């Protein structure tokens, strides 16, 4: 397959390396920053070589932020746990609601079906700030302000349309006759859904779930307005590092490393499902 000359291969290697450096540099730099003190980070010119310190991580885990202005309580670990709980709960709820809905949209034509599906999708292009103000008023009256359930609910605006539209496409790719054959063999409609349609759309459901997890995890503005300190996720919690005595770059870097790692691992793990999901079209025969 490789007919290109030596020069061509060298050129391709260099180009690939450049692209890799371009995309990986911020991550690598932040990883390095997380092992440096604020003084080391702010040195000009920056040094590649430095004496690594675990102080940033220590501060995050112990919850004590030492600054020149004194000790500061931070609840980073709690924020991290909140992020986990909120995003997972939101994705689980969105899957429970979205997968059957996606199946219905894919298999049945009903009145206003397309309108409903499109309305759900339109939640994705409305700017969040537009809905936040009325939403926070409603939430106050309903008593949902500053509750985990309230945030999980508002996260449905992010997760549900995504899951609905991605999974719908996967269901549409599966021939309905496969389910028909299963039903003729003596099974109910419900069994055909749970044992044939859902497993066949599995890679798609996993991909959609992963994507909506990432989107929920990265959300900032909903939780900023609707949750108080003890229920905030890391994205909002990171604001605590902007202190009276300056911005704590080292801790921010360490916090980023800690908060990116779980989603990164999840994405690496789920990659094969994504690839498998893309080859699902082969099922069609």
């Amino acid at each position, binding site marked *: 397959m490789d007919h290109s000359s030596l020069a061509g291969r060298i050129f391709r290697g260099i180009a690939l390396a450049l692209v890799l450096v371009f995309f990986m540099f911020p991550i690598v730099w932040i990883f390095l920053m997380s092992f440096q003190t604020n003084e080391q980070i702010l040195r000009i010119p920056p040094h590649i070589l430095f004496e690594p310190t675990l102080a940033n991580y220590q501060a995050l885990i112990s919850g004590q932020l030492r600054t020149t202005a004194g000790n500061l309580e931070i609840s980073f670990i709690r924020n991290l746990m909140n992020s986990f709980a909120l995003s997972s709960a939101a994705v689980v709820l969105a899957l429970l609601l979205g997968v059957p809905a996606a199946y219905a949209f894919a298999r049945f034509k009903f009145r206003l079906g397309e309108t409903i599906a499109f309305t759900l999708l339109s939640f994705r292009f409305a700017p969040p700030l537009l809905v936040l103000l009325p939403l926070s008023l409603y939430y106050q009256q309903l008593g949902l302000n500053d509750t985990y359930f309230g945030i999980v609910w508002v996260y449905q605006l992010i997760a549900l349309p995504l899951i609905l539209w991605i999974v719908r496409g996967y269901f549409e790719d599966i*021939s309905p006759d496969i389910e028909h*054959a299963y*039903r003729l063999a003596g*099974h109910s409609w419900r069994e055909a859904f749970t044992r044939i349609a859902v497993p066949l759309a599995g890679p798609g459901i996993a991909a959609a779930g992963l994507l909506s997890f990432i989107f929920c995890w990265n959300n900032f503005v909903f939780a900023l307005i609707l949750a108080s300190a003890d229920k905030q996720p890391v994205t909002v919690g990171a604001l605590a590092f902007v202190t009276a005595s300056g911005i704590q770059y080292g801790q921010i870097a360490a916090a980023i490393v800690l908060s990116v790692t779980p989603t990164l691992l999840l994405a690496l793990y789920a990659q094969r499902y994504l690839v498998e999901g893309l080859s699902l079209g082969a099922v069609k*025969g």
Partner: protein
Amino acid sequence: MLEIRNVDKVYQSRGKPPVHAVRALDMEVGKGEIVALLGSSGCGKTSTLRMIAGFESVTSGAITLGQRRIDELPPARRKVAMAFEGYSLYPPLTVRENIAFALKAQQRSHGEVSRRVDAIARLVEIEDILDSYPRSISGGQQQRVSLARALVRDADLYLLDEPMGQLEPQLRAVLRGRIKGLLAERGMTAIFVTHDQTEASALADRIAVMEDGVLQQFASERELKEHPANLFVASFIGEPPMNLLETEVARADGGIRLSVGPEVTFRIEGRTLDQGARQMLEQTARIRVGIRPQKIAVGSGDVRVRVVSNQWLGDQSHVAGEYDGRLLIAVTPNKIAARPGDIIPFALEPRHLHLFGADGTCIRHAEAA
């Protein structure tokens, strides 16, 4: 066994006019009978099959299978097996598991399941791929697996949607014989959809010809050929299709005279026409007549045609000739020497003519051979 009574199927979709896919369908299939639904695509044959299986609701009418009214039952309780046109195998299961699936769901013993799967696999020649997965085998193989999955079951009725469309001709011929043998041996009742006349003739006891959602005629192949109910059946069944000619009707003593062009006339004896046909002929000035290409004799007669093409197919000649702007095709077992442009005579005998009324129904059939 299976009774379809006055069934209609209308597809409604918003913003589009409703589609009347099946109209007032009445059909009865006896136990152990093999029936073909034959028609061009969009004629309603697949809709009919899917209504029997239960994937389409019946807009009006009733379907009963062995005294049970089934059109309201869920597919699982109809005791119907089906082979789908798109195969629809379960991708995560091997070929063997696909075929065994329904038997296992019925909790058959392990020994019985594997014995029956092996037997049906031998019949459709897929023993060597039993442990493969559907996506790794060819379309033709998938079709045979789908067929085996339907035939392995115990059902009151077997529905086969284009069961052999993807197979090579030789294998198709072999399988047709074997499947017919299996169905006959077990007394299985089957309905299959096809657009292939050869397949319909070879497999089915009776053929239901459908067009535009309407059952045109439901009869044996011989009956369809010799006594077509209307113009559609006459022109649809038979290869090459029946020659159709517009004729002018004139009264003659003791019968009628039909004239084609300036010099050809056919005299039809009044005794060969029934009351209805005579009435119909009195009211119309022009009717259409049909004659099978096999019934036209070449080399004698008074219809002088200009040869358009002349093909020797190894065992028969197909001669196409033009007469007064109309194309006539004749099939004879003899080799004909004529070349395109030559003028040769065709003989069309009045007793071989089918007469069609203004509404397309056949008012007089040709004499049986």
